[in-house]
C-alpha cells in the first residue's frame, strides 16, 4: 500500500534522512522505533508532505506522492496525527472533529460519522461542546486520533501517541489500534514504548541517525535483546 | 501660522512677474522671496496677512479678494436678512480664522450674537460628530468657513443632518469648482461670496467680452471665478508693462499703482497703501433647479460695489498713510 524508497530529507543544510526504504501493506500495523533524533518524525512528515526538501520516492496505492502537496495526499487516504497533537485552540471538541471532515467527500455524512466517533470515543462524546484545549492531555490525544480517523483514511500515521499519557488511557488507546486493524485500517506507528508497540505490531523498522538499520517481524524484534539495547534504549 | 521661507524662485533685476493662486502659506512664502528679490508678485488667493505692512512690499499686489472683504460683504447681506444668532464651523488655519474675524467684525454693526465657534482640522472627512452640537445651539445662521473638499463634505453632511430646514447656511466664499465637485444637493440654498461669476455679463460689457473670448477658446465653456482671477492677475501686469513702455520693475509698479481698469468684472484699481484691488464682491446663492447650462450654478443676490470703506484701513494694516 505504501512504499518508500531512497527517501532523503533535509532541514536546511542538515541531511536528516538518508535513503530510507520501508513498506507497509494493507491491513498491517507497522512500527518505527529508534532513539530520540533518529528521524522517525521526519519520516512521517516526509510521507505526509510536510518537509521542504525531499528526494527519492513515496508511492501510495500506486501513486507517486513526493511532489504532491499534503492536501492531495490526504485526499488519497493518508492521515497523520502529529506528535504535538495540534488541537486547535478556540474550537470545541465537535469543531475539531468536524475539521477532520471539511476536506473529505465524507463531509456529507457528517452527523452520522460524528455519532460513530462518539461511540468509539465515549470520553469525547461527553465533552462535545467543551473547548478542546481545556481537556486533559490524554483526552486531547484521543481527540487528535479521532479527528484523523473520522474521514476513514486507508492508512493512519501516529507519532508517539502514548507520550505523556496515563497508563489507563494508553491501554485504551492500544486496544483501539487493534480494533482499527480489525476493521481494515492500516497503521504506521512511531513509539518510544517499544514493548507495548511491538505487542500490537506486525512488523517493525529500526531507525538510527536518519537511516533504516534493521527490520524484522514484531515477534522477532521483541525477542532480540541486542538490537533493542543498541538502538532503542533511552 | 508657520510660514515657509521659500527660496530659489525669481531672480533679481527686471522682466519677471509672478502670479499665483495657492494656499495662504505658500503664497506668503512666495511673497517673501519675490519681496527680497524685487520681483512683482500679483497674488490671486485670499489672504488678509498679505495686505499687512509686515508682509507687504512695493512689489506685492493682490488681485484676489481678501477675507475681510469677502466675509464683510456676505455678513452685511446675511445678518440683515436671516437673523442675529450665529454659530460658526471653522477650518482651523489662517483662512478660516481670518474669515471668522471678518464676520465678527461686521457682525458688530448688526449686534449679532455669537453662539459658538467649532474648529475642525484641515482635511476633515466627517463632520457628523460636530453637527448635532451646532444644531443644538439653534442659530439663525450657521457660518461655515472652510474651503475645497472640507467645504464640500461639510455642506453635504449638514444637508444630510437636515440643518437647512431651520438654519440658513452661509459661507464666506463659494467656489465654482467646489460647487461642481460637490453637486447641487450639497450646496443648495447656501449663500456666500465670490469675486466673479460669469452671469454678470448682462451688467458689464467687459464680462461679456471676456466670457465670449473664453467660450471661443475653450469650446463653449464659461470661465469660473479662479479662471477669471488668473486672467485678471496677468492682464493687469501686461497692461502696466504696455503703459510703462518698459519691463523695468519700478516703472511697472508705478503703472500698476496708477491703473484704473475694467477687464472682466467692472471697475477696479489697486489701493495705493496695500496694493489691494478695490473691487466689487458678489453675494451669491447656489441653485439646484432651473439651471440653463452646466455653469449655471449660482444666482447673484446682490453686488457690493467697489469701495475702500469695505477694506481694512491703511492704518489698521500698519501702513503710514
Amino acid at each position, binding site marked *: 500500500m505504501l512504499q518508500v524508497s531512497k527517501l532523503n530529507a533535509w532541514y536546511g543544510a542538515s541531511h536528516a534522512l538518508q535513503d530510507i526504504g520501508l513498506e507497509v501493506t494493507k491491513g498491517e500495523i507497522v512500527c518505527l522505533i529508534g532513539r530520540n533524533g533518529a528521524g522517525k518524525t521526519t519520516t512521517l512528515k516526509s510521507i505526509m508532505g510536510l518537509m521542504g526538501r525531499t528526494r527519492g520516492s513515496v508511492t501510495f496505492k500506486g501513486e507517486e506522492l513526493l511532489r504532491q502537496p499534503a492536501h492531495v495526499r490526504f485526499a488519497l487516504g493518508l492521515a497523520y496525527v502529529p506528535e504535538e497533537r495540534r488541537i486547535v485552540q478556540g474550537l470545541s471538541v465537535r469543531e475539531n472533529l468536524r475539521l477532520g471532515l471539511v476536506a473529505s467527500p465524507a463531509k456529507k455524512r457528517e452527523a452520522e460519522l460524528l455519532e460513530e466517533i462518539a461511540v468509539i470515543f465515549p470520553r469525547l462524546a461527553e465533552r462535545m461542546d467543551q473547548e478542546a484545549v481545556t481537556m486533559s492531555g490524554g483526552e486531547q490525544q484521543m481527540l487528535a486520533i479521532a479527528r484523523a480517523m473520522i474521514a476513514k483514511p486507508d492508512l493512519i500515521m501516529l507519532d508517539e501517541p502514548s507520550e505523556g499519557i496515563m497508563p489507563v488511557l494508553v491501554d485504551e488507546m492500544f486496544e483501539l489500534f487493534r480494533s482499527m486493524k480489525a476493521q481494515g485500517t492500516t497503521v504506521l506507528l512511531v513509539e518510544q514504548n517499544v514493548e507495548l508497540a511491538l505487542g500490537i505490531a506486525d512488523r517493525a523498522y529500526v531507525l538510527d541517525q536518519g537511516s533504516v538499520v534493521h527490520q524484522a517481524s514484531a515477534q522477532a524484534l521483541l525477542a532480540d535483546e541486542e538490537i533493542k539495547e543498541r538502538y532503542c534504549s533511552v | 501660522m508657520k510660514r515657509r521661507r521659500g527660496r530659489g524662485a525669481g531672480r533679481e533685476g527686471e522682466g519677471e512677474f509672478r502670479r499665483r493662486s495657492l494656499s495662504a502659506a505658500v503664497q506668503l512664502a512666495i511673497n517673501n522671496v519675490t519681496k527680497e528679490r524685487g520681483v512683482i508678485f500679483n497674488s490671486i488667493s485670499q489672504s488678509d496677512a498679505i495686505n499687512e505692512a509686515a508682509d507687504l512690499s512695493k512689489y506685492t499686489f493682490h488681485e484676489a479678494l481678501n477675507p475681510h472683504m469677502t466675509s464683510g460683504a456676505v455678513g452685511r447681506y446675511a445678518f440683515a436678512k436671516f437673523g442675529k444668532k450665529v454659530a460658526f464651523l471653522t477650518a482651523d488655519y489662517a483662512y478660516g480664522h481670518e474669515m471668522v474675524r471678518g464676520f465678527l467684525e461686521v457682525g458688530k454693526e448688526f449686534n449679532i450674537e455669537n453662539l459658538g465657534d467649532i474648529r475642525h482640522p484641515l482635511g476633515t472627512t466627517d463632520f457628523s460628530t460636530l453637527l448635532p452640537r451646532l444644531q443644538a445651539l439653534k442659530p439663525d445662521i450657521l457660518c461655515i468657513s472652510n474651503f475645497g473638499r472640507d467645504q464640500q463634505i461639510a455642506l453635504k453632511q449638514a444637508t444630510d443632518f437636515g440643518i437647512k430646514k431651520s438654519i440658513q447656511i452661509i459661507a464666506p466664499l463659494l467656489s465654482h469648482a467646489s460647487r461642481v465637485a460637490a453637486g447641487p*444637493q450639497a450646496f443648495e440654498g447656501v449663500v456666500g461670496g465670490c469675486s466673479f461669476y460669469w452671469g454678470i455679463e448682462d451688467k458689464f460689457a467687459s464680462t461679456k467680452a471676456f466670457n465670449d473670448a473664453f467660450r471661443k477658446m475653450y469650446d463653449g465653456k464659461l470661465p469660473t471665478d479662479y479662471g477669471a482671477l488668473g486672467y485678471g492677475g496677468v492682464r493687469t501686469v501686461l497692461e502696466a508693462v504696455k503703459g510703462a513702455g518698459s519691463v523695468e520693475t519700478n516703472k511697472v509698479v508705478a503703472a500698476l499703482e496708477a491703473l484704473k481698469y475694467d477687464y472682466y468684472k467692472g471697475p477696479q484699481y489697486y489701493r495705493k497703501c496695500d496694493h489691494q484691488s478695490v473691487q466689487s464682491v458678489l453675494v451669491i446663492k447656489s441653485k439646484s433647479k432651473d439651471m440653463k447650462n452646466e455653469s449655471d450654478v449660482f444666482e447673484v443676490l446682490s453686488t457690493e460695489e467697489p469701495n475702500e470703506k469695505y477694506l481694512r484701513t491703511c492704518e489698521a494694516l500698519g501702513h503710514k498713510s
Partner: protein
Amino acid sequence: MAGLSFDLIALQLFAGLALGAIYVLFAIGLSLIFGMLTVVNFAHGAFYMVGAYVGLYLISIGGNFWICLVAVPIAIGLFGLAVERVLIRPLYGRGIDYPLLLTFGLSYVMVECVRIAFGKTGYPFDTPEVLQGAVDIGVGYFPLYRLFVIGATAVVLLALWLFLEKTSFGLIIRAGARDPQIVRVLGVDVSRVWLIVFGIGTAIAGFAGLLAAPLQGVIPEMGGTILAEAFVVTVVGGMGSIGGAVLAGLLVGVVVSMTSLFAPEMAKVSIFALMAIVLIVRPQASSAAPD
C-alpha cells in the same frame, strides 16, 4: 456654548456608532486578511476607494445604489482574488515585509490609475433618494442614510458571523488562522483558503467604500485617511481579531464623537491617544489571536 442635554449626548452616540460602522467594516477585512495570511494589506484603502469608484461608474451607466450594494463587493472581491493570485502568492514564506511593501506600492498604482481614469478632482455621490434627509429618532433628527449605514454594517457582520461559525469553510478559516499546518494535514488546500479570504476581505473593503461615498463623495485619496485610522482600530482590537475589530471600531467611533462634543479640536488626536493607552495598558493587544 449651550449646555449638554441628554438628547445631544444620545445623538452624539449615534453619530459615533455610524462613524464606527465604517471603521468596523474596513477593519474586519484588514484583520481577516492579517489573521489568516499574515499579510498587512496596505492596499486596503485603495480597494475601499475603488469600491466607491465602481459604484460611481455603475450609477453613471444607469445602475442604482441597490445594484451597487451587490455588484461592488463582487467586483472588488474578484479584483482582490486576482491580486492575491498574481501578486501576493509568490511572496508567501518570505517574511511579513514583502507583501507589506508590495501592497503599499500597489495602493499607489491603484490611486494613480483611478486618477488617470476619473481625474484628480472628486465627484459628488448622491445619497439614494429614499435614504435622503433626516428622521426623528426620539432624541433629535439624524440622517436616515447614516442609520442605513449602521444597519448595513450589522447585516454584513451577521452574515460574516454566520459564515464563520456555521459553515465548513468558516471552520477552516477559524482553524487555519491558528494553525495552517494542521488544516493542511487534514486535507485543506490552504492556498485556496488564503485566496478566498483575501477576496472576502477586499470585497468588504469595497462595500465600505461604497457606503462611505454618499457621506463624503469620492476622491482618489479617500482610502488613505481611513487606512491610518483603521490601523488604530486593529491595534486596539488586536491584529487579526475580528471580534476585537468590531468592538474597537465602534469604540473609536464613539470616542471621536464624544471628544468632538467636549473638545472638537482634539477629536482626531483622541484616536491616537486611545491607541497609546491601549498599547501601554495591554502591550500584547496588537498580536491577539483571532476569535
